[in-house]
């Protein structure tokens, strides 16, 4: 327990000390928010779908979370190459505790990152309708954070060096983001794309957040939570299995 806590704390300290990283990873969501949020606004309104900024803001927050999360998990490669990982591998601590500490730490960091994007969205004009539902949105954000950090941890346990990083970003993380309901509504999508979007776990997270922010609450939220929670648990299991196979 003490080990999980100290490794969680380590991730937070590293995050709070690396201002460049904090600001750097805000750049992308900010760009999307400004360019898409305001750029597509008129088209979206003309199509009768209402305020696009309102619609896209949860998606942009998600973007901040998943990129930071996957990166935080993949940091294992960094730790492996710079040697720190060995210190944890020879410690009298179960591998599961190491994975939990790291992943929860990374997830907390990406949740914080998501909250910063949330504040930026508020500044840009995003409004929430029922502040009482904010905790529910937070739950979704936390689940997305855990799920994607665990994905990062799993990948980081398998890759040997950072050369595969670009591959993961372009062929896993970007597609997961773009083929979800983060930027456009599911209704009216052409068949195959619709299937892909509905199979994408991220869609459930975004749907849940969107609903919580817009003040609707319904049974489908439970589905969203169950899908995300189950998947996050599975991914945690997978990542600790892959991590335990690392031989220093």
């Amino acid at each position, binding site marked *: 327990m*003490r*080990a999980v*806590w*100290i*490794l969680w704390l*380590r991730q937070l*300290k*590293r995050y709070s*000390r*690396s201002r460049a990283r904090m600001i750097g990873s805000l750049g992308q969501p900010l760009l999307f928010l400004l360019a898409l949020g305001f750029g597509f606004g008129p088209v979206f309104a003309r199509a009768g779908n209402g305020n696009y900024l309102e619609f896209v803001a949860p998606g942009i927050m998600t973007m901040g979370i998943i990129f930071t999360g996957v990166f935080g998990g993949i940091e294992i490669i960094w730790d492996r*190459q*710079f*040697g*720190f*990982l*060995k*210190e*944890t*591998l*020879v*410690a*009298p*601590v*179960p591998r599961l505790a190491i994975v939990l500490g790291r992943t929860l730490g990374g997830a907390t960091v990406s949740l914080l990152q998501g909250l910063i994007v949330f504040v930026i969205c508020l500044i840009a004009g995003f409004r929430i309708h029922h502040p009482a539902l904010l905790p529910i949105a937070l739950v979704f954000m936390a689940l997305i954070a855990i799920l994607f950090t665990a994905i990062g941890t799993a990948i980081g346990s398998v890759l*040997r*060096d950072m050369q595969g990083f670009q591959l993961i970003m372009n062929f896993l993380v970007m597609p997961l983001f773009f083929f979800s309901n983060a930027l456009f509504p599911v209704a009216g999508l052409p068949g195959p794309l619709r299937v892909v979007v509905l199979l994408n776990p991220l869609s459930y997270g975004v749907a849940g957040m969107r609903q919580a922010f817009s003040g609707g609450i319904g049974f489908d939220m439970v589905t969203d939570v169950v899908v995300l929670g189950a998947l996050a648990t599975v991914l945690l299991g997978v990542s600790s299995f892959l991590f335990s196979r690392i*031989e*220093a």
Partner: protein
Amino acid sequence: MLSQGKCKSQSIPLGSQVANSYDPPVCGSREGGIATPAGRTESAVKMESMIEVRDLVKVFGSFTAVDHICFSVPRGGIRAFLGPNGAGKTTTIKMLTTVLAPTSGRIRIAGHDPVRQPMLVRRAFGIVFQDPSLDDELTALENLALHAALYGVPRKEQGQRVESLLGFVGLWERRDDYVKHFSGGMKRRLEIARAFLHQPRVLFLDEPTLGLDPQTRSHIWEFVKALAKEQSVTVFFTTHAMEEAERVADDITVIDHGKIVTEGTAGALRQATGTASLEEAFIALTGRSIREDEASPADRMRMMRRAWRGR
């Protein structure tokens, strides 16, 4: 009776009378080979040894990295483990420290089996790796606090132990500085302090003085020897610096091509090979050919690190 091993540590062409003057490995007693020294029964040897290795084998694919090696290090002993690049040193240390599973053979660290009781073994040893394993983004104190938490050092004792160890290696004044601002020698000193923090019974050092200047090297060994003596810790280290092995170690074990070539004090090795220095003895034992290692990702990272940080 101990199990029959295949250890061939005495198969080198040394004069048999010289070989007999060595402190033979525990499992040297099979094959009608070398008898255990008088007055020490095998069980007594076994009881007092902190590191015991018998018939240890590690095979990677078709390559046998470690081939039926045997040795033991008594409690409080300081043992140098020498060998050319690729001889099997690091592979052996990895198996002793639970991070690599042996193909076959038996290991006991402080009486525990790294394969079946990894947690007990990990609690019993401290290690300084060949490459720095500190978190550069944390301070010296934070690195030690992290280690204390991982090893379950009692909180009540933690502060006092940290202070005395950091004081001992001369880093107490720098305790709140980020490790990234430390020199190579300071990092090493911090790692040595860290390795002693949970009061291990065995200390492993894998080329701990690589890349350090002579002053720092001599300091590092002073710290290690003093701390090991104070806490009666058994020390097992690898190095390419023969004068260090000669100066620091009680006994020397030489490994090459995955096999133990010989074992004994520096004096006995020199005598057996008829050479004037341990370096010459080492070359006489392991040959003159240069061993080529393939660059691993770690090597490449080392080079990158040097390129980026000017070190």
